[in-house]
């Protein structure tokens, strides 16, 4: 009897252990998808895969061999252009969109410290060992003529020679306190300066060739900076938001703060600049229209649009602003006063930036591609003007 009671205790404790282990293995590694337009095709990096989608119908494009023939699986079914990497018991995750390094190769950066070379035609990764980088990748890498700059979320930035990616980095830049860089770096028009927004509250200007620090914004930006700074049209000012509930206008020459504006919550998405107007979003669901008067960022309007966080940069087209929210809606706003014209529901939180696609070929009017974090609706296409839903990927 005592033996069975003891067995029961062991059973209960074992059950708790298994439950706890199940909790421990819950996905703690997730992010939103990242979209880009490549050769008139949508490239989506989402969780553990990269896929190519046809913007006209939302169907996955097919994988081809070097001769251009569609590749089939063992049953004769055509293979999708889809990349997944599982190697050495690790499933790799892609939070950033791939970049094209030559006419045959895409580079996809995985969160788990790796870069993978993907064959452009077939989507096959030839070497699943990958190229190791000294940190996790959350922000999009930046490709220039000479370098591939990779931001590392727990380190800084590494510059790789784009023609010899597997070689040791040309230079490495560590931000203060190893807080990391979560945003894609920005390169100046002449390619000489790299602007790096860091989670250590600072904006850095580096020599793009050597990584030497040119300047660091002399005033703490009052919070982590997780978004890429953006230039105004004449490249005389940089705009960036911070977790210190602020939008800053900064001189690209010396990093001095020219103007700032207080928001209601963290600013995660990059501001969008149209002429002298700066549009920004925050995590309390607000959208802001600020006029750059030269020495100030003057509020034109501030509207509470969504009930959830707005993480993305606002997409502005003429008089229309489109934003997506963690409340699983996409909102069309009037650029004049921020009032909501209409909204469309989605199946998941909308956190990634919107990908606009102009009218071309079979796409008869401009469309926007929205990425949600729901695996069942990784992409949704809407018409820009009326918000008509065209297709979703994967199709239901």
């Amino acid at each position, binding site marked *: 009897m005592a033996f069975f009671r003891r067995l029961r205790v062991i059973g209960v404790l074992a059950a*708790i252990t298994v439950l706890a282990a199940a909790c421990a293995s819950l996905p703690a590694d997730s992010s939103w998808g990242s979209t880009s337009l490549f050769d008139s095709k949508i490239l989506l990096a989402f969780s553990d895969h990269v896929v190519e989608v046809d913007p006209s119908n939302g169907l996955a494009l097919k994988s081809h061999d070097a001769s251009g023939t569609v590749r089939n699986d063992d049953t004769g079914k055509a293979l999708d252009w889809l990349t997944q990497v599982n190697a050495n018991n690790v499933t790799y995750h892609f939070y950033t969109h791939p970049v094209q390094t030559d006419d045959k190769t895409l580079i996809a950066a995985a969160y788990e410290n790796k870069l993978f070379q993907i064959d452009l035609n077939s989507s096959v990764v030839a070497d699943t060992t990958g190229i190791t980088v000294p940190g996790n990748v959350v922000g999009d890498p930046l490709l220039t003529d000479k370098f591939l700059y990779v931001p590392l979320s727990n380190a800084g930035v590494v510059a790789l020679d784009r023609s010899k990616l597997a070689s040791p980095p040309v230079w490495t830049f560590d931000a203060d306190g190893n807080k990391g860089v979560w945003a894609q770096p920005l390169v100046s028009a002449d390619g000489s300066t790299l602007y790096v927004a860091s989670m250590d509250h600072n904006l850095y200007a580096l020599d793009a060739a050597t990584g030497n620090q040119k300047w660091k914004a002399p005033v703490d930006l009052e919070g982590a900076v997780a978004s890429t700074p953006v230039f105004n049209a004449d490249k005389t000012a940089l705009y960036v938001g911070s977790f210190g509930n602020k939008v800053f206008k900064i001189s690209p020459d010396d990093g001095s703060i020219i103007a700032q504006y207080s928001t209601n919550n963290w600013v995660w998405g990059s501001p969008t600049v149209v002429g002298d107007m700066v549009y920004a979003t925050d995590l309390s669901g607000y959208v802001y229209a600020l006029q750059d008067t030269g020495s100030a960022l003057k509020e034109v309007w501030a509207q509470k649009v969504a009930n959830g966080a707005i993480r993305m940069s606002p997409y502005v087209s003429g008089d229309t602003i489109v934003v997506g929210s963690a409340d699983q809606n996409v909102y069309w706003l009037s650029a004049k006063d921020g009032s909501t014209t209409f909204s469309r529901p989605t199946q998941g939180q909308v956190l990634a930036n919107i990908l606009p696609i102009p009218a071309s070929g079979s796409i008869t009017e401009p469309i926007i591609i929205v990425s949600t974090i729901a695996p069942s609706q990784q992409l949704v296409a809407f018409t820009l003007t009326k918000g008509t839903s065209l297709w979703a990927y994967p199709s239901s």
Partner: protein
Amino acid sequence: MDFILNPFVTLLTFLYSVFNHDMVLAIVVFTVLIRLLTFPLTAQQQRSSAAMQQLQPEMKKLQERYKNDREKLAQEQMRLYREYGINPLGGCLPLIIQFPIFIALYEAIIHALATTPLQLLDLSGRLLVPGLSTVVPMDNMWLGMNLSLAPNFASGSILPILLPVLVVATTWLQFRVTMPPPAPPNADGKQDQAQAMSQSMGTIMPLMYGFFALSFSVGLSIYFIASNTIGIIQYALMGKADFRRAFGLKPKPTDKPAVKLESRTSKTTKVSSNGKEKPTQKADKAKE
């Protein structure tokens, strides 16, 4: 869960900001605060366990007397508990309350030390004090280990192995130190069932926590070690820790009762650590 998780995340972040951005120190101080807050429950658990242990002779008599009448046995057991003012769930309740705290702390560490975009986004909605966002993201590295991840044995360092070992050792020691003295064996020489189960728990629990330390974040191991150590110190400060017995050595001789059981009806009974009853005449004298 948010009603407990958000204050935990906020408190952990606040301690991190106060203690020079040292997350390990923040977890240790957080543990001290939790142990202080739950001290009344811990003390009640100890009292309940000891009292239940010492009522075993009485319980055995009842079991013998009513072995064929389970309903009557249950009634008599409840009467006995009432008589001595013991809540039979008093030993379990604090443990049940500890479990959500442990789960919430695990979640709090993961959320506070956000390492992925969605975790960081989630953190933004959990900080109840606005100014705390200036310390985000928090430094999650400690002695080469990521506090938000399970120990990484591939690093080649001894620390990922040492931490689970320390968790097992301190859990074992705390269990041994806080376990009530063993009741005398039955007339047939067999060990009491409850005591046998306690001993099983004493073996399994440290191993289970060791497994948790291997599976969960390094930060949680810090919590386990700190919590166990504080528990041992608390018990020692209460004057009830017998480290000799914990290590299987002969216990210190003492006349001091493990717990003073007072009947609410007729008599006062002191039960010494060896489980023998010492009825006093106080109540009877009062009657005379």
